[in-house]
Each structure stands twice: as C-alpha cells, then as structure tokens.
C-alpha cells in the first residue's frame, strides 16, 4: 500500500513539474535587489520590467514576470532559481548582475533544464559547458578584440603594447584577445609587460614601455590599480594613450587618478543616453524609460536588462511554444536580433557577439565617443 501511495505521489509530482500551458507564459527574473550588488541588479530589473510593460504579450499569450531577489549571495542565488523552477514553474529565467551569482544559479537551471538569459554577467565561466545558459552581453575577453579594433580601425594606431595583470584571469583573457585581434588586423604588438595584482609600483614596466614607443597601450586592469598606472605614466612623461575595459568603468577612477586619467578610453556596453546615432530600439527604450522614470537617466545596465527580455521574447516567438526545451533551441539560433545594445548574435559558446561602446574621460567625465564592431 505504501509503495503504491509513494508511486502515486511521485507521478503526481512529475505531472505538476511538467509545464502547464494555460495561456500564461511565466518568466522568472532572479537578480540582486538587496546586498552589495543591489545598485546594478535594481537597474537591470527596471530595464526588464520596462520591456515587459511595453511587450506584455508574446505570440498572443500574456507574460507573467516572477521576480525573486538573490540578495547578492551565491547560496541565495541558487535558492532563488530553485524557487522559480519548483514553486513558480517558469519556462525561462532572466538574470543576473554578477557572474558568480549567475554561476550559482546556472547550476540549478542546468539540472532542471530551464533556459536562462544572462544580463550583465560577463565572465566566460557563466556559460562555459552549459547547455541552458545564454547571455545577452558579450564576454569579458571579447572586449580585448573591441579595444584592438577601435585602436587600429578608428584611431589608426599601428603599434600597440599590453600591460597585463598575470594574477587575474580577466586581465590575461582580455590581453590575449587584444593581441590576437590586433595582429590579425595587421597591427604590431611592440611590448607585452606584466604585473601582479597588489603591485603598486609600475615604474619599471612603464619606463620599459616608454622605450618601445607604442601608439597605444592596452591596460585591462581594475580601476584601483589602473588609476595608479595612469598616474605613474604621467609622472614618467609617457606620451602614448591608454585603452582599458569595463573593469575601469568606475567613477572613482577620476578621483584616484586626477588629471592623469584625462584621455583614457575604455570599452563598455554599446548604450549610453548621450550617444549619437542611436539605433531605433535604443531610441524607443530611451523615450519609454524617460516616461516611466522622469527623474533618472537610463543606462547600460537597464539596457541589458531590457535586452534580455527582448532576446527571450524573440526566441519564444520563433520556437512557437513556451516549452523550455524549444526555447533553448531557439535561443541558440538567435541571429542579427536588434536590441538596445546593438545587433545581437549568439555564438557557439552562448555568448552575444555585438557592438561595443567606447568611452573616453574628458574633463573628468565619461564621454561616450562611439561604437565599434569587434573583429576577431
């Protein structure tokens, strides 16, 4: 009797797990709404909510957004995804800001075979070996290719050097991409200098760079170290320019580096409310954002939050069904999709290949100076 009861219970559970097509598409959102990453997570969520507000229906079916806070904590991130899948029975998930949170949540989704669209989690490991994790942003190292393309094609610099933190995966990955892309396009790498995380004296490396006389130096550093590098370069009278990546995207860089960061460039997501020649999707996003949030400017994080929804909507429409497996297959086929942050194509590693923005620091302020399509 007990065995039969258990079997019945099991069957009942299995049935309830299966996706019930009752005319509503349930999409889960897990993002950090509290904790140390709350600032970023909140912006992304507002972007996703804006997209939902503008496009409340997919293929004629109503979409229900179920929002769960992952509290900027890895354990909570896994719990949040479990809750979305088991309690709320969502067919797909959007999230999150913070790559480590995405990785924690991704494990759960992978086991449950529910597709996830990542927002701004740029670490390559998020989608590595995952069948169900995708992302609407590019991966970190891809920025190396973006910086190389911009330096060579737009600024016409032929001689470049790199200054890499050998103790950081991020820095090494970007440096490799930069070098490969720059050399492929016919540029020359005149020096490859290195340092270690925690170093504070870069005078030896910079003096060496000065002797090699490059046009531009690629510096994929974190802002705290990067600002000191720029400062010492200025003291040593370096005349070349520096270009970095999103880890330098922190307003503190100006307070730390002062005048020395003037003219420093870095790559970023290809959206900024101040950008010229905005694509139609970005224009619409900006206008609608201003209607909903008249008191604050839209930004790139809100834009990727928005784009994640757009990408999922596109996949569900092409799949013609809200079955997780079919959505997954459709996500894999995403190609030339217009999004706020450029034309998005998903590559074999489930990462977006898309436009990249370039920012320059002028008079102590970030100025969006253009976009580039990375060649790699």
């Amino acid at each position, binding site marked *: 009797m007990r065995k039969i009861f258990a079997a019945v219970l099991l069957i009942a559970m299995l049935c309830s797990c299966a996706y019930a097509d009752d005319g509503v598409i349930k999409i889960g959102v897990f993002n950090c709404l509290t904790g140390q990453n709350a600032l970023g997570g909140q912006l992304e969520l507002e972007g996703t909510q804006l997209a939902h507000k503008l496009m409340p229906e997919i293929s004629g079916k109503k979409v229900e957004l179920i929002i769960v806070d992952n509290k900027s904590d890895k354990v909570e991130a896994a719990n949040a995804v479990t809750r979305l899948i088991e309690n709320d029975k969502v067919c797909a998930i959007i999230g999150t800001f913070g790559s480590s949170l995405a990785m924690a949540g991704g494990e759960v989704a992978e086991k449950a075979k529910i597709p996830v669209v990542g927002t701004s989690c740029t670490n390559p490991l998020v989608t590595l070996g995952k069948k169900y994790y995708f992302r609407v942003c590019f991966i970190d190292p891809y920025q190396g290719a973006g910086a190389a393309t911009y330096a060579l094609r737009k600024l016409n610099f032929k001689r470049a050097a790199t200054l*890499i933190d*050998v103790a950081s995966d991020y820095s090494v990955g970007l440096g490799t991409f930069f070098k490969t892309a720059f050399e492929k396009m016919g540029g020359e790498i005149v*020096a*490859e*200098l*290195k*340092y*270690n995380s*925690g*170093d*504070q*004296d870069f*005078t*030896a*490396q910079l*003096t*060496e760079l000065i*002797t090699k006389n490059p046009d531009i130096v690629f510096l994929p550093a974190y802002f*705290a170290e990067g*600002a*000191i590098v720029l*400062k010492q370069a200025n*003291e*040593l*009278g370096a005349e070349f320019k520096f270009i970095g990546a999103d880890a330098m995207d922190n307003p*503190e860089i100006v*307070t*730390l*580096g*002062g005048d020395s960061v003037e003219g420093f460039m870095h790559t970023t997501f290809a959206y900024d409310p101040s950008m010229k020649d905005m694509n139609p999707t970005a224009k619409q996003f900006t206008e609608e954002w201003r209607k909903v949030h008249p008191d604050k400017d839209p930004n790139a994080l809100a834009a990727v939050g928005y784009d994640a929804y757009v990408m999922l909507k596109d996949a569900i429409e092409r799949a013609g069904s809200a079955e997780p497996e079919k959505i997954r297959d459709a996500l894999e086929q995403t190609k030339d999709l217009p999004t706020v942050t450029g034309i998005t194509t998903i590559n074999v590693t489930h990462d977006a290949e898309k436009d990249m923005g370039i920012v320059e620091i002028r008079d102590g302020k970030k100025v969006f100076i253009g976009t580039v399509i990375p060649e790699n």
Partner: protein
Amino acid sequence: MTLNIFVQHFVNALSLGSLYGLISIGYTMVYGILRLINFAHGDIFMLGAYFVFFATIVYKLNWILGVIIAIAATTICGLLVDRIAYRPLRQAPRISALISAIGVSFFIENFAVVVFTGMPRPVVQPKILMKPIILPNKVRLIPLGILVPVVAFILVAALLWLLYKTKPGLAMRAISFDIETTRMLGVDVNKIIALAFGLGSALAAVAGILWALRYPRVEPFMGMTPGIKAFIAAVFGGIGSIPGAMIGGIILGFVEIMSVAFFPNLSGYKDAFAFFLLIVILLFKPTGILGSKIEDKI
C-alpha cells in the same frame, strides 16, 4: 638599454627600495630586541597612511601638521598593540607571541575594512612634491623620489645614534642580549620595549605616509604586500641589523625594477626573482648580509 633609460630605472629603484627599507627597519628593530616577528607591522603602516589621509584630505589640515598627527596617532596604536597583545605574552613561548602578531594583523585589517570601508581612497599629493625635474637625456625625477631616500637615510642615522649613543639605546641593546639580567640591573624593561614599539610604529607611519604620497591611494589591505616585502628585506639584510634592513630594502627594490628592465618579457615574475635571490643569499649566508651569528644562550 641606453644610459638614460638605465638612469631612469636606477632612480625608480632607489625610490622603491628606500621605501621597503624604511618599513623593514621597524621589523628589524622589534625583532632585534624581542626576537618577535611583528606581523602587524604592515598594518600599522597602513594605519599611518590612513591617518595622514584623514588629517590632510578629510579634515584639510596642512601637510606638516597632518604628518605630525598621523605619526603620533600611529605610535599610539603601536603602543596599544604592544600593551594589549604582546606584553601579556612576554613570558609565554615565542610562538604564542608570533600567533598573537598574526591575529593582530588580521584584526587591524578587518577593523579597517569596517571603519574605513574597503573602497580605495585617493590621496591628493602636494603639487610641490610632484613637479617633475627633467635631467639631461630626458630622465625625469620627481622631488618626492628624492625625498624618500633622503628621509630614509636621515632616519637610519638618527636611529643608530639613539641605539649607540644614548641611555635608552643602551638599554635596548641590553634587552636584546638578555632580558632577565637587564631587568635585574634596574631597567624598566617594559618601558624600553614600549619605546622600541613606539619608534617602530612611528617609522611605519613615516613609511606609510611616503608610500601614500608615492602611490596615491589608501585601502585597508595596502600594508600586506609591502609588509611581506619589507620582511624579506629585513631577512636579506640580516634581521636585527638596522643598516642591514635599509640595504636589504634597497637591494630588493633594485632586483624588482631591474628584473623588469632587463627581462621585460618576464615582468610577471619579478617577485619570483626577488624570492629566488632571497633563497640564494640565505643558502650562502644564512644570517643575511649584515646579520651577526646568533649564539644560543645556554
């Protein structure tokens, strides 16, 4: 490598090396007297940098006053550490004091994260110290780069004078020789040890201030790497010897800078060069460059 580039590297190395030297003097002094490796020294150094940051940038005092206040405050912290964490362990096995030192180090670092937050803060350098002097052949020198070695050498000289020409110095040397006998001769041992800690902390404060000026940011973990490097410098030079610490620091600075200068492709391994040299020196001269042979007391 052309001559002017070499000179530029030389100038950079001297400035970095004297900073290491300045920090390592504090290590070596405490070790010389107590046979205690004060692992919290790097964190005292960090406090010095923070105090000068608060005095001059947050409270907008002028630099001279700010530096004096920072040195005084850091000295008080050093004395407190000695009183709370080391003095009760004076009679305990040496390893207990060492573990206590590691504990103090973690405590100060994490306390700083709570109080000052983990965000690196910028230090505004006085313009006068930063205006580059351009020597022939385009070698650039900033006044701060000269100030660092000059301050370091003056402090070494002052310290040596104190140790060899004054009564408290005599007492310190006596304690390093034999604590119990010194106590029996009527010297207030705790007071003299406190003096050594105070001096060590004041030196750490000076180093912290110069470091914060040279690499203009402060953060709670800024003392870790320089602390370890300075410890190496102290061992290099012969731990316990003050001129040795200074020489060790300068050698370390030169090895780091010159390894990058001569082998730019291996610049990621500059620490490996430094540690390799340490191993080689210790293999051939286990007591360091200026270290004297320590005889075990029977």
